[in-house]
């Protein structure tokens, strides 16, 4: 694919931190004591009419509000397509419909939860909310879901630079998912304070959630947060394979490790999964500012979208949030290149490269 430039011209993020207000950047870290991080939500009435609000599930409210925040940030430019991504989607609705189904022996069921349970429900809702009849799809590929959405948008912009895509992610810290997956060792066995996640190495991570939307175009505007240079996904790589892929990824983007000003590390606090990514940080990026984020948003399939927001904010505001810092390096006059390396489940590895817009 011929290299072109792509710009993030709007963001809207609702997460366990105070992120829905784009005028501030992680002002006061939110603390959670019990392994589960839930969104700090805005007043939904500022985004959605009360009559519609009543009919929407919690995740649809969060997702739609994040999408609207993003569109407002992009100065209400109309997207030509909507590409969404999620890990477990609307599992809360799925579980509610299943519970009813099992309790009532498959009789007299109401369809509301079933209707809202499809993984693409948010993409459809946003489309009808803004009357966007263009391209619309949803990816649900665990730790690749968000990057696949991003990759899809970049390919389409490469074909036709007049388009604009609303690219988003949404995942909910759902109780059923917690119950099931904590038995599989996904989460810390002991209640863990999120801000102390990395101080106490153990198996398992924190359950997180969030919705993040980005308005992506082939042209720069006054609103531009940063440019997206490239993204790549590596499925279940060995350490050497991943390392050489990362060097190659930088190389094809005409960069070396020394050019990376900010390295955003997708460690989840799970000692079983963080080894490779931490060693990459120690081996190549000791001179870069190293940031972590999963103590702020928790772990979920599309958590790398929070990292994209963080990287875009660092570049736009030329500010590094102390709460995310891993190391201490001399301050740089200008922050230009951000590299995000994420992992999900120690199998799905992704790279995203950002540049100052």
């Amino acid at each position, binding site marked *: 694919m011929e290299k072109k430039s792509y710009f993030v011209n709007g963001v809207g993020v609702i997460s366990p931190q105070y992120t829905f207000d784009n005028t501030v950047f992680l002002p006061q870290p939110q603390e959670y004591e019990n392994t589960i991080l839930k969104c700090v939500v805005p007043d939904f009435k500022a985004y959605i009419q009360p009559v519609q609000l009543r009919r929407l599930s919690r995740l649809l409210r969060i997702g739609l509000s994040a999408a609207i925040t993003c569109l407002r940030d992009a100065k209400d430019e109309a997207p030509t397509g909507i590409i969404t991504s999620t890990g477990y989607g609307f599992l809360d609705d799925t579980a509610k419909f299943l519970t009813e*189904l099992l309790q009532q022996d498959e009789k007299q069921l109401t369809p509301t939860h079933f209707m809202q349970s*499809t993984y693409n429900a948010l993409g459809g809702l946003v489309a009808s909310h803004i009357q966007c009849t263009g391209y619309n799809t949803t990816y649900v590929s665990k730790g690749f879901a968000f990057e696949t959405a991003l990759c899809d948008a970049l390919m389409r912009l490469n074909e036709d630079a007049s388009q604009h895509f609303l690219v988003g992610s949404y995942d909910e810290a759902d109780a059923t998912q917690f119950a099931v997956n904590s038995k599989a060792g996904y989460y810390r066995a002991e209640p863990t304070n999120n801000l102390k996640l990395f101080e106490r190495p153990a198996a398992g991570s924190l359950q997180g959630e969030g919705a993040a939307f980005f308005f992506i175009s082939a042209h720069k505007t006054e609103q531009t947060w940063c440019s997206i240079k490239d993204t790549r996904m590596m499925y*279940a790589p060995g350490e050497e394979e991943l390392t050489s892929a990362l060097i190659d990824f930088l190389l094809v983007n005409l960069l070396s490790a020394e050019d990376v000003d900010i390295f955003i590390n997708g460690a989840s606090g799970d000692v079983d999964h963080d080894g490779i990514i931490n060693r990459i940080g120690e081996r190549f990026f000791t001179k870069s500012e190293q940031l972590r984020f999963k103590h702020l948003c928790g772990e979920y399939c599309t958590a790398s979208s929070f990292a994209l927001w963080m990287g875009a904010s660092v570049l736009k505001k030329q500010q590094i949030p102390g709460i995310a810092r891993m190391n201490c390096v001399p301050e740089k006059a200008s922050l230009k290149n951000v590299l995000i390396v994420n992992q999900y489940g120690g199998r799905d590895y992704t790279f995203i490269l950002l540049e100052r817009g």
Partner: protein
Amino acid sequence: MSQRIFITGFGAITSIGENVDENFQSLVEARCGIGKADVLETVHRDMPVCEIKLHDRELLELAKAPGGKGFTRTATLGLIAVKEAIRSAELSRQEIHDSAFISATSTGGIREFEKYFYQLQENTGPGPWSQFRDTANPGDHAERIADELGIKKYVGTVSTACSSAANAIMMGAQMIKHQQVDRVICGGTEALSKFTLNGFNSLFILDKEHCKPFDEKRKGLNLGEGAAYLILESEQVVNRSRRKPVAELKGYGNANDAFHQTASSPEGTGAWKAMLEALQSAHLDPVHVGYINAHGTATENNDLSEGLAIQKIFGDDVPHFSSTKPYTGHTLAAAGSIEAVFSILALRHQVVFPNLNFGQPMKELTISPVTGILRNAKIEYVLSNSFGFGGNTSSLLLGSAA
């Protein structure tokens, strides 16, 4: 961007056949898969469904994965069809390793999730459920299939309800066009479940008899299960390997109805846009299309909006069209790839499969589907439609490989 995309292999399993050949025989002999639910444990046993009459263990044997730990019915059906596709394209181990895999699902491993719903949440110890720990994740089935076959390049999952597999094929084609990969194995898989059966039942859109697409007296759909996958390869790879393509993916379109979560707009805005875009991307005119494999679910809503959209595009010159849902039922996420396989069969054998159970034309439409098999049909291009909840509408345009 002028990269052509060829289909060099395909595989399918549905209630009318365990492989592509069996499906073709059933289609030409007008043999449908509708019956009672024998394998799925449900109180709605009399609700007609298009079920594959093999228990999970038997399916695993058919997939030649008898160990099959953690393979849900969805994943097993997928594995069977992917393996057939790989065989038909004669891919080497290295070629499989270097392929991208994009699978589509509506509800992932919901069948096992609903079966072990309480045990999965409550029990820490081992049991028949413990192999299904992450069955609620829709992407899990694709990783299982990829791991079983040694696919390494990329693993992705698409979920846009009933248009999922068409969108998986589209994404596969995009990745080839943009030189991300040389080859993609893509399609969709769907197992019947209590969740979907009761979901559609609660919406009152299941017909208690055999479904009748595009009929004035249609009463709803029949659910089905199955899987189908295509091997897509770039023109360069085909030239290099001298593999004989079975068809060409000429174009595709994707749009959104932007109307309602579970209903299509009455005038079929999204359907019209998707078909138009598919034609435009292929640089073809409506007159070139010889057959439309319609989405045709037989719900009141779908067939009306799809029918009007077809009339709007094709005017007075509507090509042969039929819905093959009366054979296989509505296989939701897999419908797009199963019907892409049927469209390829139509092209290869120059036949139009009849729209079973049709009696009376719809009063809102001036067109009606093909009701008897047409042979020597002179079809050069086929349009295959897939529409779904969330307003997602997709259309694939397939052409002969010549």
